[in-house]
Structures are given as structure tokens and as C-alpha cells.
């Protein structure tokens, strides 16, 4: 993938846009089974990320992602801050030294990000968290890359899987995070963190598609 740095910046712009647009919806979801701040948290975080990465034009993807990570950690707070911060940090590390990113690199970054979230949150699939959107996304991405599909197509598969994973959180009983305090009452609601994770994967897929071919 040529001009990976520019595309990375565009991805971060798109994610910021998407978080702003969906802040209200994410907060609504978090009000049902959490504390009603997930949308505000994510929007605040990416609003802080954007000017910083805009000022870094020309720097490699891993530098942009590292700044994203530390800024999220410093501004999001709550559960999402350390989790997404860790995810972007691990992705940055996976892409360290790479200027021209290919499918395998993207897969490695996604895998590292998911591992980071699982380690930090001590979460496994099926607990009604962002892990439930990201696990199928990474699986789909891996399958597509291994089948030799191009990055854009592979990411489209990942985004579709993330959406399915997100929707699959609805009937789940939460056993991690705030929603777990609700016990049975957490059933029937879509997890806000899984939703923001899907939105991020979709934003990445969209930007890559628009810049490919």
C-alpha cells in the first residue's frame, strides 16, 4: 500500500468523524447497561488525537498510531481509554519501522491490538465487550489475507464480521465491565464498546477502499 502515512492519517480523521457522529448513539447504548459516557469518552479522545496527528504529517504510520495511543490514554479515561490506548500502542509496535504497509502488516497490527485489549481487560470472547466485535474481525481478516485477497476486500470482510460480532453481543450476558453489575438485565442490549470497535474497523475499511484501485 503506497503512501501508508497519508492513509493512516486519513483513517484517523475518519475515525474521529465517525466518533463525533455516533457519540450520542454510543452514549445511549452505554446508558442502557453502563453509565452513559462511552460516546462522550470516545469523541473527547479522538478530538484530542486529531490536531496532534494532523501536525505530524509525513511521519510514519507507527508514529501516528503511537501518538494516537498515548493521547487516548491521556484523554479518554474509563475502561475504553486504557483498552483502546493499549490497542493502538500494540498496533504501533507491530508496524514499527514500516513505511509501506501490506496486508500481512495490517493483519499483524490487528492481531496485536486485539491481544493487547484482551490482556489489559482480562477479557475473552463471549463476555459482551469490544472483544466480541474485534475477535471475529481479526479472524475474518486473517482468513481473507491467507486466501490472498487484497487489503481492501479483506478489510471489508473484517468490518462485516465486526458488525456481526457487535450484533451478537445483544443476547449476551455481560461478565466484564460495568454491564456485568446488571447481571441478567444486561441481556438484550448491544454493547457500546463492541459498537465503537465495529465503527473503527468499518472506518478503516472505508478509507482503504476509497484509496485503493
Amino acid at each position, binding site marked *: 500500500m503506497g503512501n501508508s502515512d497519508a492513509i493512516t492519517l486519513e483513517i484517523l480523521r475518519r475515525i474521529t468523524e465517525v466518533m463525533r457522529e455516533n457519540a450520542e448513539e454510543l*452514549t445511549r447504548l452505554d*446508558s*442502557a*447497561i*453502563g*453509565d*452513559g*459516557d462511552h460516546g*462522550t*469518552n470516545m469523541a*473527547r479522545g479522538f478530538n484530542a488525537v486529531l490536531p496532534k496527528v494532523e501536525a505530524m504529517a509525513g511521519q510514519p504510520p507507527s508514529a501516528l498510531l503511537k501518538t494516537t495511543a498515548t493521547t487516548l*490514554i*491521556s*484523554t*479518554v*479515561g*474509563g*475502561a*475504553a*481509554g*486504557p*483498552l483502546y490506548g493499549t490497542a493502538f500502542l500494540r498496533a504501533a509496535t507491530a508496524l514499527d519501522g514500516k513505511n509501506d504497509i501490506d496486508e500481512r502488516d495490517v493483519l499483524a497490527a490487528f492481531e496485536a491490538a486485539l491481544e493487547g485489549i484482551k490482556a*489489559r*481487560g482480562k477479557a475473552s470472547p463471549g463476555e459482551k465487550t469490544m472483544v466480541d466485535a474485534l475477535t471475529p474481525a481479526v479472524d475474518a481478516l486473517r482468513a481473507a489475507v491467507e486466501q490472498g485477497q487484497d487489503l481492501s476486500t479483506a478489510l471489508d470482510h473484517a468490518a462485516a464480521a465486526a458488525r456481526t460480532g457487535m450484533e451478537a453481543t445483544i443476547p449476551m*450476558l455481560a*461478565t*466484564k*465491565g*460495568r454491564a*456485568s*453489575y*446488571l*447481571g441478567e*438485565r444486561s441481556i438484550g442490549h448491544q454493547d457500546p464498546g463492541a459498537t465503537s470497535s465495529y465503527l473503527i474497523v468499518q472506518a478503516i475499511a472505508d478509507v482503504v477502499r476509497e484509496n485503493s484501485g
Partner: protein
Amino acid sequence: MKKLINRPEDVVREELEGMAAAHPDLLRVDPELQVIIRKDAPIEGKVGVISGGGSGHEPLHGGFVGMGMLDAACPGAVFTSPVPDQMLEATKAVNGGAGVLHIVKNYTGDVMNFELAAELAQAEGIEVRSVIINDDVAVQDSLYTAGRRGVGGTVLAEKITGALAERKASLDEVEAVCRKVNENVRSMGMALTSCTVPTAGKPTFELGENEMEIGIGIHGEPGRQRLPLASADEITEMLVTPILEDLPFRRGDQVLAFVNGMGGTPLMELYIVFRQLHRILSDRGITIARSLVGDYITSLEMAGVSITLLRLDDQLIDLWDAPVHTPALRWGV
């Protein structure tokens, strides 16, 4: 949403500016970084005690910064754990060379952010210990949850731990007494109404005119159970029974009885609850040796109450009675 605020995004910063203006004798406040520090910190040779968490629980934690209690507090956005930068800054500001204790309420976000901060502080050569407060008996099965939440017990832990630190006890001792409070304290809360996060603009949940939520936390979240509205006496019984069974508290125990308002409940009602709590404890042969009644750990304007019982021994009584001088808790000075 009806609130005495300006822009919803600015509530925490403006609140901190107000605290700075109201308590210049006690506090040093950084409204941008969102850190509240005891005026005379760091104190050479004293363990620094800090806490933090989302805003919206005032006076917790900022109102408990001062002599004999916290050395610093880090308020996050409303109901949102603060970020490691705040905690690191607070840790550095109160480090008097004897180490720093982090008192952390058990919420995934708080725990993870404090973990990151502790790592960063350790990297800068400051010895940091953390005690996680998890006193909420409403969350019964920690196998299937993020574990018990930290609620009313936090106030008592901060007071008692701060008192021991004030006497220049070692980090080991300070950590130990904080753990001891946590092991001997149990709480449970309920809500008559929801509350509204300023940036959300509408109530977190809807509750009918004849409904209540039992087993709530302090983040405006719904509780474990929605039940028909009951009388103060019945509600008190529902809250105190699981508390008594959990530790368990026994005949002959001396306790600190803490009846806490969630923010929108008049003091009158807290005393009506205290009355029944006193009766129930008397019947069981448990003595209320100390009491605390008022709004100390709140959920914005939520109407509701929580009950916290701490089993006391001589050390805990002595430390509870020790002088304290903070915006929200003050005696002996």
C-alpha cells in the same frame, strides 16, 4: 436537563475552579490537568495517599483532600475514570519520599488507569502501592462480574488511611490499614430516581412513579433489581440484611454506621433510614459506636440512599476520631 451549569463539557473544570476559589487555605487545584492537591504537599517522610475516580460523586474525592485524609485527588469527567496523567501528576506532587498509596474503587476503568499510572510512577522511582476498595454487596457473584464495586466504604477507607499516614506510619502500615478497612466494610445502595450526566442530557434510566432500583452503584446505572416502591423501613431492611450476612457482622460487634445520600435525597429521609438501621442493629446486639449521616459519595442529583457498615476495633476507632481538615469532613481542628 435542568442543572446549574454553563456548558456541559466544562462542568468539571469550572467545578474545580470553584473549589479553588472556595478553599484556598486547604487546596491547590489544577483545573486543566484536573488534580486537587493538599496545600502543604509533599510532606517530607509522610506516605502520600491519593484517590480519584469519575466526577459526579462529590464531595468524594476532592472534598476529602486535606490534613488527615487525602493528599491529592484526581477527578475524571462525570462518571468516567480519570486518566493516568492525572494520577501520575498527583503521585509526584504528594511524594514525600515515603511512598504513595493509591486508593482505587473497583471499576474496570479506574483499576486499569491507576495500574498504568502506578507503572509510570514506579518508572520514575516512586514506590506506589494500590488498594482496591470493593465493598458493594449488591454484586454477589464476582465470578461472573467485574467484581464488587467500591462504594461507601471508600469514604471510610480514605479517612482512616489518611489518619494513619498523617502520623507518618510506613507505606506497609498505611497499606495494611486500608486493606483492613476494606475487609471489614460492606455497603449497599438503592435509587428512587435516576440522574442525568450533563453531556448525555437525559436521565440514564427511566423509573416509574412506583418503582425503585435496589443494588445500584454510584454511576447512575440501574441496580440489580427493579422493585415496587417500599417504605423507608422496608428499604432499610432490604439494604442492611445482605450487608449483615456478608461479613458477617455478629452480636457484640461495634460498627461505624454510615447512611449516605445519593445527592437528591433530603437529610430528613437519611435520618428516617438511620432510625430503622439503629433499630435493626440494636435487635441484633450490634452497637453503633460511630455514625456518619449525609451526602458523601453521590451520583449527581440521584434520589436514593446507601448504607455502609464498618466493623470497628480500637485502632479503627482511634483513626476515625483523629483530626481531619478537608472541605467536606472536618473535626479536631
